[in-house]
């Protein structure tokens, strides 16, 4: 059975069915509220939903069955001394170690749970880095949206912040350093790039089978790191991509050489280029990219796919799913070679994650 958790502008849609066929809406939660992100911690089986209520702000909920009752987590919320309030919850990521999870929010901050996601505490080390006063928001706000644990090493973590770059810790969050070597912020005048703090990371994922390999979708540029995020190599220029701008990114959990992106026309437009929906796959660490569009709309389709709206199911062959703000969800059960529409006429899709991974 395939289970997708689709966060939309009007609630969480729990889609279920057989892979490769249209999925049914098995449940809907948080009707009328914006579900920014939903995921499942495969270790505990617990589901999480980040909900932004139009009047009452952002809140995190958890459940053992996403089609039944949800409980509200304690946090994430800033301590009084931080003099800040959570504006949006962007991502929840299982960590390394029993009950450890991480949560990224706007304004850019990282929270940690040690009790399986029931309660959350601010990671003070990142919040208090001296450079934070220089951080600037991207169009989506100053947000920490990408969290990359290091399999087998609970102390190492990489996070991506828009637009404050990549930050690394090797002591479980007590101390942090920025790591942006190789990234080129082309959106700035050349003479302003050297001293800028404005590194607009759009998405970042680690290859779990080879943790020193990470892939990144940047605000104009696709990059790979071979050294755990210490430095970054351009894998987007002159390689056949219709655009090196975008947000969605998936790394094959079984193959560190394989990754997928969905380019969007840069950067004021932010729709699928030429009205044609295509996923681009690399199987050689970004040396070349191949368009995967069999079964996807080929014309008159100007879709926007948001940052968290693309995922894999972790299977082999790999299942891939993405949703658009126009309300469609597309899926592939063969690693991207062929695609089909698995849901349509949903509210604008903010996030897609597999519940059965």
């Amino acid at each position, binding site marked *: 059975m395939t289970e997708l958790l689709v966060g939309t502008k009007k609630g969480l849609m729990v889609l279920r069915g057989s892979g490769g066929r249209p999925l049914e809406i098995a449940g809907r939660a948080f009707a009328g509220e914006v579900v920014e992100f939903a995921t499942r911690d495969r270790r505990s089986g617990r589901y999480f939903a980040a909900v932004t*209520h139009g*009047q*009452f702000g952002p809140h995190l909920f958890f459940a053992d069955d996403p089609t039944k009752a949800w409980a509200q987590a304690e946090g994430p919320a800033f301590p009084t001394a931080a003099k800040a309030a959570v504006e949006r919850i962007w991502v929840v990521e299982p960590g390394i170690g029993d009950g450890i999870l991480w949560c990224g929010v706007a304004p850019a901050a990282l929270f940690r749970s040690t009790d399986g996601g029931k309660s959350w505490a601010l990671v003070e080390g990142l919040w208090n880095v001296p450079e934070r006063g220089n951080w600037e928001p991207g169009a989506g706000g100053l947000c920490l949206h990408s969290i990359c644990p290091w399999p087998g090493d609970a102390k190492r973590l990489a996070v991506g912040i828009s637009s404050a770059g990549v930050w690394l810790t090797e002591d479980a969050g007590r101390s942090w350093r920025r790591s942006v070597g190789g990234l080129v912020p082309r959106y700035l005048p050349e003479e302003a790039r050297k001293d800028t703090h404005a590194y607009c990371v759009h998405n970042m994922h680690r290859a779990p089978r080879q943790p020193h390999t990470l892939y990144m979708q940047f605000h104009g540029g696709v990059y790979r790191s071979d050294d755990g995020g210490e430095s970054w190599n351009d894998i987007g220029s002159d390689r056949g991509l219709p655009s090196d701008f975008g947000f969605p990114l998936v790394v094959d959990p079984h193959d560190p050489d394989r990754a997928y992106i969905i380019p969007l026309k840069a950067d004021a437009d932010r729709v699928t280029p030429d009205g044609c929906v295509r996923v681009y796959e690399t199987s050689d660490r970004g040396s070349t990219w191949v368009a995967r569009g069999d079964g996807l709309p080929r014309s008159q389709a100007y879709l926007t796919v948001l940052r968290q709206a693309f995922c894999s199911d972790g299977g082999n062959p790999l299942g891939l799913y993405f949703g658009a703000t126009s309300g469609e969800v597309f899926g592939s059960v063969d690693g991207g070679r062929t695609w089909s529409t698995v849901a349509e006429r949903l509210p604008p899709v903010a996030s897609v994650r597999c519940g059965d991974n």
Partner: protein
Amino acid sequence: MPRMILSGSVREHAGGLGTIEVGGATAAAAIQSLEAAYPALRGWIVDERGALRRHVKLFRRGEAIALDAPVAPADEVHIVAAISGG
């Protein structure tokens, strides 16, 4: 004791109650008292800085009030979700 009148979806975080008697001499103190009695309400009416959520309004005797407004024992304070969204 002042009475807090809850509307809409926040009621579900206060055991489904629409009217709750609380302590406090100001609207802020009354909300703190409400949160102490119903911890699930924390973060819904005011954020973690204690600021009123942008689209939440408080009314007393038909007038919109700020958090530092005094409330008398006979007062009713309506917590209203402003019309917003899309």
